[in-house]
């Protein structure tokens, strides 16, 4: 009987200790409450007309295309162009299978053309990109791919695909890195220079 009592009190003690540990550790996990709908940032519900973008990165004097193309006879045959050499030389966007008229419209020079044949203005070029790069398009629409500036809870400016990726050669270009932090040796050198200068002056005198 005595032995039994011992066991039961021991078990109760262990149980209580366990409960105490659990309750203490659970208190650490704070419960977060969600924001009501009207206070959210509405990033997902993005309307194309609400997008505030910096000016499109056209080369100087290249747009509108009709300035030149209005006076030319359009030809749908795939060929090396005798104008737009700058684009021809850098073009590396599935070069083997694609060329100008897969994205540009033959009939309406100042528009882009979706795969369906639907025309869109240059301002909405992201729709064209999104036809193939659906995963990036999805992330871009919620602000995860690409860059936004402005306010985290309000008005932002969006960069379009073409602000960072040249549509004719889309790989992001390498950059020169800014200065690295000082090495410990650099600091010591600086200090040596500072301390040596007055000494030299004194010797000259």
């Amino acid at each position, binding site marked *: 009987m005595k032995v039994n009592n011992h066991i039961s009190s021991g078990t109760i003690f262990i149980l209580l200790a366990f409960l105490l540990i659990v309750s203490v550790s659970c208190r650490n996990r704070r419960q977060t*409450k969600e924001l009501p709908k009207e206070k959210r940032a509405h990033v997902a519900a993005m309307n194309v007309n609400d997008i505030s973008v910096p000016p499109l990165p056209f080369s100087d004097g290249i747009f509108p295309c009709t300035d030149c193309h209005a006076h030319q006879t359009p030809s749908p045959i795939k060929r090396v162009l005798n104008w737009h050499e700058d684009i021809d030389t850098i073009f590396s966007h599935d070069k083997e299978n694609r060329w100008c008229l897969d994205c540009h419209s033959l009939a309406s020079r100042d528009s882009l053309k979706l795969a369906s044949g639907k025309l869109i203005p240059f301002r909405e070029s992201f729709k064209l990109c999104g036809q193939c790069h659906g995963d990036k398009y999805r992330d871009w629409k919620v602000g995860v791919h690409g860059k936004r500036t402005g306010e985290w809870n309000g008005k932002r400016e969006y960069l379009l695909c073409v602000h960072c990726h040249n549509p004719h050669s889309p790989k992001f270009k390498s950059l020169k890195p800014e200065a690295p932090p000082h090495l410990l040796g650099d600091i010591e050198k600086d200090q040596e220079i500072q301390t040596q200068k007055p000494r030299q002056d004194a010797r000259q005198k």
Partner: protein
Amino acid sequence: MQDKNNSRRTFLKNLSTTALSTILLSGCSSQAVEEFFQRNFRELSKSDVDRIINKLEDKYFLKYGKKFHVSAEPAMDETEFAYGLDLSRCIGCRRCVHACVKENNQSREPQIHWIQVLQMDKEKGIDFSHSNVHYNPELVPEEGHFYLPVSCQHCRNPQCIAVCPAKATWQEPDGIVVVDYNWCIGCRYCMAACPYGARHFNWAEPTIPVEEINTETHYLGNRPRPKGVVEKCTFCVQRVRKGKYPACVEICPVGSRKFGNLLDPDSEIRYILENKRVLVLKEELNTEPRFYYFYGV
């Protein structure tokens, strides 16, 4: 016995009086004395804060010849900040490091950088012992490497705060870990406790070129610091409490830096946590960072 006790008391009394009068007579300005006796920022009344801020603005005007604005904006309601950094995008260009230095008035000499960009070997993965912060090639990114910028992780369980003997550093309701530079005693315990090397000490009077100084400041953030205190990333408290993105988010040329409110289910940061592969640094230490690294691809 009675005599002995009395004499000790008188001794201590005299000692404190002497100390006080020494301070007063030693040519300290009244402002220095007042600063010395200033209470912890969290215990100050609204009028005290206003008075102290006015004095600070005057002091900075005298020192730098520019009109400063020192804000004491408290945390917004219903905000809990979190940060996302896309490891698959970062190219290690260090634009963020230098934008942060300018925005937050960090000392140029001796040099303080709140952000360290670590270059890592792709073969080794995230391995701090083989990382390099001094890389300097002609162009980045370099073949076979990836880049991992580290700054304050704004932990939910911050060890720096736990060890501070003066309670000069604490976590604000919006999750930002801040330092009261007027209360910091410069013991650097927090620097020893931080597993991310995110805290930096002003070993000398900070030097900032006057033409590059940012006069839009926050008391707990980027106001010019005195010598002998610890400083760190504050998520640009002077910007984010006005709704703006931190300076590093604004400058990042590849858009790898994301910032937002965790309590807002429509925010970018929530999308990242719900849809991307996310990691935190040194998870095993149970610091529970608010700084999430993710793979955007």
